[in-house]
């Protein structure tokens, strides 16, 4: 077991992500959200996360952004009406501000989660274990999260493969359609089962759970900077939340 200092620690990053996301959810005022976004980006830069990569990831969620902004501006009719049709307010100043706040909020959360990209999967498992999460549980959760996109891609491939056999999914009766979807579950499930069997074999080959206690190659320790950041992040968040409850900020 090697004692290694690896600043910032996983626990520090998790504390910062927790602080930023709870602030992003709690705050409604666009100006404060803007400030929070600036702080988040500063954290990312300071930690050395590539903003280019982050932007690329945000781009993947552009439809989500668009739909949320649209829903916000259509449903929130407060403030001055900017666009109306037959007496319905389609776009209002309140709606526009609401949409801006919603967009800022998602951008902040996605950017904050980007901080975790600094750590690999193994480091995350160790970090969670150090926080008292049972090891097997931490391992399984991270494994599952990592495989969701793979499963979705397999499902899409299978759908295409069925159509390539000349089956027009739009044209067949409902009864057959249900049968096709039950067919589609087969390769996806079988793929998942085969993959998990492979992983289980690989883990056992590496003596996973062969002994009641695990020995870690690296067991990172918190350095004073970690403690400082954790205290600042959690303390700052508590302070802002207090101000919000007292009604000082919106």
């Amino acid at each position, binding site marked *: 077991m090697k004692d290694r200092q690896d600043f910032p620690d996983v626990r520090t990053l998790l504390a910062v992500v927790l602080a930023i996301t709870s602030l992003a959810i709690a705050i409604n005022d666009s100006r404060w959200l803007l400030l929070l976004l600036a702080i988040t980006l500063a954290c990312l830069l300071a930690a050395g996360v590539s903003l280019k990569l982050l932007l690329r990831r945000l781009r993947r969620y552009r439809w989500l952004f668009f739909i949320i902004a649209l829903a916000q501006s259509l449903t929130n009719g407060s403030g001055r009406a900017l666009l109306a049709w037959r007496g319905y307010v389609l776009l209002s100043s309140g709606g526009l501000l609401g949409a801006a706040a919603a967009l800022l909020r998602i951008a902040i959360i996605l950017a904050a989660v980007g901080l975790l990209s600094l750590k690999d999967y193994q480091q995350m498992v160790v970090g969670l274990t150090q926080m008292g999460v049972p090891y097997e549980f931490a391992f399984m959760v991270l494994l599952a999260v990592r495989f969701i996109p793979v499963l979705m891609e397999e499902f899409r491939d299978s759908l295409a493969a069925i159509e*390539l*056999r*000349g089956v027009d999914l739009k044209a067949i009766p409902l009864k*057959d359609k249900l049968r096709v979807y039950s067919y589609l579950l087969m390769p996806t499930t079988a793929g998942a089962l085969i993959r998990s069997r492979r992983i289980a074999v690989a883990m056992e080959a590496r003596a996973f759970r062969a002994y009641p206690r695990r020995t870690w190659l690296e067991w990172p320790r918190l350095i004073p900077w970690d403690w400082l950041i954790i205290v600042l992040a959690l303390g700052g968040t508590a302070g802002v939340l207090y101000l919000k409850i007292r009604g000082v900020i919106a």
Partner: protein
Amino acid sequence: MTYIQLEQVSFSWPRGEQVLKDINLAIEKHDTVALMGPNGSGKTTLGKLIIGLLAPSAGRVLLWGEDAAKYSLAARGRRIGYVFQNPERQFFASTVSEEIGFALKLRGMSPEEAEKRVGEMLGLFELEAYADTFPFNLSQGEKQRLALAAVFALNPEFIILDEPFSGLDWLRKQHLLAMLARVGETGVGYLLISHDEEMCARLCSRVLHLEGGELR
């Protein structure tokens, strides 16, 4: 009318790497064409562009003399068979016979007719012993044969095969070679994607080389 035609086709992944540059290609219905090239040269990509699993970034794919963009995957699949590089990708059913037969039934063939066709395919591709086996439990060679049988059962006019010889030992390769030769004799053309020089030379009348995104 050219059966498959590519006009100035280019393809790049969304992140920007260009895989294919200005490809021009014409394939006739009865052609037996080999597509060779190093790993990652874009062979699979070219096959997927033809069958419609990917769309060109520039240029056009024409099928049967018309812009292929107007055909659905199902419409293309009714005339052109496509065998995936990883055959598991195309298995759905819980038994080998069902795997061969289900698309026939979904396409309106009567159960008796479908059963007869399944029987023929099991014989042609030497899978009788595995009629009730779960496809995922077959060996690599058997999986390749099943993938081919399932596609061939649909009576395609043309077949695209993506690396059907990979992972097969010499004997299994010879078997598959014999089966593909039989397919060719029935007048069905194919595009064979493979690294295997010997197989390409024996099975195909025309060999294409893909390198650096261009055809030679």
